[in-house]
């Protein structure tokens, strides 16, 4: 029905670290403008999946296409250029602690787009305002900010270059429920304004329900279930059922020595 290739297309992506197989044949499509959330337990390779798409980690096998282009065949310069399409919110924020907040937000504009510093600063302060932070925050360094503020600055940095694809790695982890919801609202608002395609990973279901069009569950290195937000409560998949109800007993066995 739609001849346009999906924004992100993964086929049979595998990655192992030594004997430990983390991704075991991932098949996933993300359509243009769609928001997909991947849920799964800790240590199931959600972050590795994102890093494979970004090219920070090389997958052992499988195909990853962005806009129909196979990323494994790009040269280093083409890959740097492709990165201009991406924004990423890292789990710990990953703000540059040697730079003031505004320069963190403006980093992609100054370094990658070659924008002059004053113009970039104006945009950075606008983006900070969009995530509810005043211009006085721009002059601080990241170490002076609380966890919630760091997440918001990181979000402002991820959207500053108005990327086509944004990744959110555990956007609400480590925040109180109210701040978590503030971040979720900001994500939804920013994504809608940009019309961006997003891929998020989380184990926070409240967050997933709020920001996702579609939810996929990662377990044992495979996508074992995917469906819309409404479907997740009706599914009879025992893995998903166990995960969303947070039960210790079920088909998912946590690696806990008793």
């Amino acid at each position: 029905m739609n001849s346009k290739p999906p924004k992100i297309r993964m086929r049979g992506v595998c990655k192992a670290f030594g004997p430990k197989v983390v991704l075991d044949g991932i098949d996933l499509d993300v359509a243009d403008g769609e928001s997909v959330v991947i849920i799964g337990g800790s240590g199931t390779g959600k972050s590795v999946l994102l890093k494979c798409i970004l090219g920070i980690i090389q997958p052992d096998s499988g195909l990853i296409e962005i806009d129909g282009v196979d990323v494994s065949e790009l040269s280093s310069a083409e890959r740097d250029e492709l990165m201009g399409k991406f924004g990423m919110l890292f789990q710990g924020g990953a703000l540059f602690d040697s730079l003031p907040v505004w320069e963190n937000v403006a980093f992609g504009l100054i370094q990658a787009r070659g924008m002059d510093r004053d113009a970039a600063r104006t945009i950075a302060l606008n983006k900070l305002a969009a995530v509810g932070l005043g211009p006085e925050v721009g002059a601080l360094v990241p170490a002076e900010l609380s966890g919630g503020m760091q997440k918001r600055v990181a979000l402002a940095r991820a959207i500053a270059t108005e990327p086509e694809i944004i990744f959110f790695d555990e956007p609400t982890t480590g925040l109180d429920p109210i701040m978590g919801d503030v971040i979720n609202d900001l994500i939804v608002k920013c994504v809608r304004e940009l019309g961006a395609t997003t891929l998020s990973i989380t184990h926070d279901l409240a967050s997933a329900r709020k920001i996702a069009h579609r939810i996929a569950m990662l377990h044992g290195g495979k996508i074992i279930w995917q469906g819309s937000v409404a479907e997740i409560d009706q599914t009879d998949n025992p893995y998903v059922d166990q995960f969303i109800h947070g039960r210790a007993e079920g088909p998912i066995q946590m690696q806990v020595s008793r």
Partner: protein
Amino acid sequence: MTVSSREDGVIIRVLAGVGRIFLNFLATVGKLSMFTGRALMHCVTPPFYFRLVLRQMVDIGYYSLPVVGMTAIFTGMVLALQSYSGFSRFSAEGAVATVVVLSMTRELGPVLAGLMVAGRIGASMAAEIGTMRVTDQVDALTTLSTNPFKYLVAPRLIAGLTMMPLLVLVADIIGVFGGFLIGVNKLGFNPANYLTQTFEFLEVKDVVSGLTKAAAFGFVISLMGCYHGYNSRGGAQGVGTATINAVVSSLILILIFNYIITEMFFAR
């Protein structure tokens, strides 16, 4: 039979251990060579980050001056005292000025400055880049279309390579001055004579060999700091290990390169 098979088992275990260490060594050499090649390539291809190069130059060159200057002046002073008391045994006190200037420019200036800078700069580079690595800041650079090699590694290599020779030149001068102070004020040399003797037997080659060493040491210090920082793993402990490895490996490499470069310049 059982005794000999048990002996075989022990021998195989020992040999396997030796083999593993050797293979790890080769893998590390390969990894380091790849890292060096990539880093050098990014030093000479645009875009260049001049502000970062400048900042590293100030850090390595300017802020290392006090510690390198202190090292140099006391080394020059000790050299004058030691050579005077040693050479007076065979009435060669007149050689003090020559000994001080040759020792400083050829050997002690570059090596001692290299060791001090390795402790100061190598450690700080490994800790800084290592912390950036374990907090995902290095990956964040990539997602912001900025190559970490260009942004982090190249400026440090360029600054190390260019600033160490300047630093050592200053150290040479301060060291000779330290020798002059002791020679004139304590050992009773005539100031003019001391200076004449200082330059009488000094050749361009002496200074150039020392500055060549300095450039090599500066490169090695930056390379080790960046390499170990870039490859650090696993939180605070990993950064600590990276810092130790950066300092120890650059100290050892400085001593090895010191021999090789001396051999290149002065071997007959």
